[in-house]
């Protein structure tokens, strides 16, 4: 190949691949409207707040961002709205050693951001992030769990609390909680956390049946 044909190949080849990209982009834009939930005004406002506070300067979303703080794509699937709102407005009130500072996010902005996170959690991401292998194994073993353990799992308690190193870090570690609290306290705390721990960010689980609450309490009391 001489220089001139190498040049022509470079020019026409590049144009060809760019045209292919443009065609695929037109199709992707159409399909994105179907693969993502509809956008409300609140979600658009939430995205504006997302940019205003440069959230991507620490977090990732859809896996893209700064790798300094957790990925937020599916956060709203695991954590409740009220809790997220409280966290956004003052993270260190919930977890004093949190890396995230208080940015002065207003209540409205927090609500908008939560709406945005709910929206992102419903994007069809081709199955990303894949469920961890251990979580899949735990699901398979769910039949062997005690009723209390099953309720603990169903209500995603481990997204905030950890037991023996497994689980979230924003709520207190429950590994030895039964040494600190008695049965009545735990039971009452599920129904109304703020009554026993003023300012607590934990949502109430009073909507669970009395039977389930008992089973969950029994499980918590085994954590010594």
């Amino acid at each position: 190949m001489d220089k001139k044909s190498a040049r022509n190949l470079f020019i026409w080849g590049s144009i060809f691949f760019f045209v292919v990209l443009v065609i695929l982009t037109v199709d992707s834009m159409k399909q994105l409207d179907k693969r993502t939930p509809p956008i409300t005004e609140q979600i658009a406002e939430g995205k504006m707040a997302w940019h205003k506070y440069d959230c991507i300067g620490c977090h990732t979303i859809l896996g893209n961002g700064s790798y300094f703080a957790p990925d937020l794509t599916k956060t709203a699937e695991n954590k409740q709205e009220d809790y997220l709102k409280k966290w956004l407005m003052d993270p260190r009130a919930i977890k004093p050693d949190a890396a995230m500072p208080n940015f002065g996010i207003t209540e409205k902005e927090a609500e908008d951001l939560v709406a945005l996170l709910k929206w992102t959690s419903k994007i069809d991401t081709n199955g990303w992030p894949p469920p961890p292998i251990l979580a899949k194994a735990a699901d398979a073993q769910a039949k062997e769990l005690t009723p209390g353990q099953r309720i603990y799992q169903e209500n995603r308690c481990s997204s905030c609390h950890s037991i023996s190193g497994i689980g979230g870090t924003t709520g207190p570690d429950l590994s030895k909680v039964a040494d600190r609290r008695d049965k009545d306290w735990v039971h009452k705390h599920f129904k109304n956390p703020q009554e026993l721990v003023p300012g607590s960010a934990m949502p109430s689980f009073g909507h669970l049946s009395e039977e389930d609450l008992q089973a969950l309490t029994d499980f918590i009391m085994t954590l010594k």
Partner: protein
Amino acid sequence: MKYKSQKIAYNFFTAAVLFFVVQVVVGLIAAAQFIDPDIFFLPFNIIRSLHINALVVWMLLGLMGATYYLVPEESETELWSPVLASLQFWATIIVVLLVVAGYVIMGLNPQANKIVLGTTLLNEGREYIEAPRWADILIVISVLVFLFNNFMTILKTKKWTSIQGVLLGGLTFLALMYLPGMFFTPSISKDQYWWWWVIHLWVEGSWEVIAGAILCFMLVKLTGTEREELEKYMYIEVGLVLFTGILGLGHHYYWIGTPSYWLWIGGIFSALEPIPLLLMVWDAFRIANKHEAKITNKTAKYYVVGHALLNFVGAGVFGIIHTLPSVNKWTHGTQITTAHGHLAFYGAYALLIIAMIYIALPEMRQVKEFNYKRGLVSFWTMTISMIFISLTLIGAGMTQTIMERMIGMDYISVKTSYNIYFWIFRLIFGFGFIAGVLIFVKDYFTLGKKPV
């Protein structure tokens, strides 16, 4: 240096070197914040914005300097307007400093990043292109003025060498690919779709085309031979860069809501992306070995060959290890990406620009002989440190992939307990890197000023 007006490149190179220093200093702070988030008075997001924006700025300034140096020499005439180039330089610096001031203000008071006319005032909150919209527009104007000046220079003599054709083509592509990042869309998926046009079609598209042209220019400069042959290979290299890189964009469209055909397109094309980079390594080694006796500028030779090699290792090898969807599903969004980013930018662009500086600097200072040793010491200090920085990040990324993604442990506990030693070692090698940079800076300001 054959033409007086090439000297304008010196301003750009000096500013590039200074922003390089800023980048590594804030990088060190960012690394320390992984160990203690409150160690500095500005939060991590601001430090990171400064770290990656300083990177973009110093590299753009370096590429502009390289172009202002290269075009008069290739066109065999003085620059069309040195005054305009000087104006463009100072205007760019002022805009950049204003943006930096905005970030610092926002770090002290997050509420200062007000929403004005549907866009944020100080920081756009989008990775790499954090600069606010008003600055975007000014930067585009600056790049257009820069392109205009160079095109007018070429038109003076109409000597369209292949090198400057590819270089200016790459730069025009670069300018155009800044535009998809300049509008608001309420969908995060669409936002990231267009955002990747900017980021990917820069670093794995237009910038690599520019690198190919500059590499070719440097090899011609170093040896003074085989121009035709080198230009032919340049076309093949930059052609393959775009044939694989344009659709290789698909490797960013696996998981952001885009259709699943991107898994195939992205997987196949991005797996081919290292091929042109390997060709550049072969080219650089072949020429450097064949004409070793002719090459008097040893420092430049080290940086040129080092650039080709680490471009392949950092961008190519560290890229391909996590580019296939079956792997990327687990590693996407982990420190593996950070490891790849660090070595790729260092190899592909930091070394390229420093190589170009070492080609131009002795000529600008009008010295034939200079002390090569300091340049080599800085090369090895920076390179070894950066390789180890990347290895600590690969370690952290593998730990994160296995513990968080595969086993399902909490992000924070993996980061604060299991990865802490990687952060500490990364910081130590960060100090090593900054030592190498300071040696280079000293060499930059003193090279050729004392007789050998």
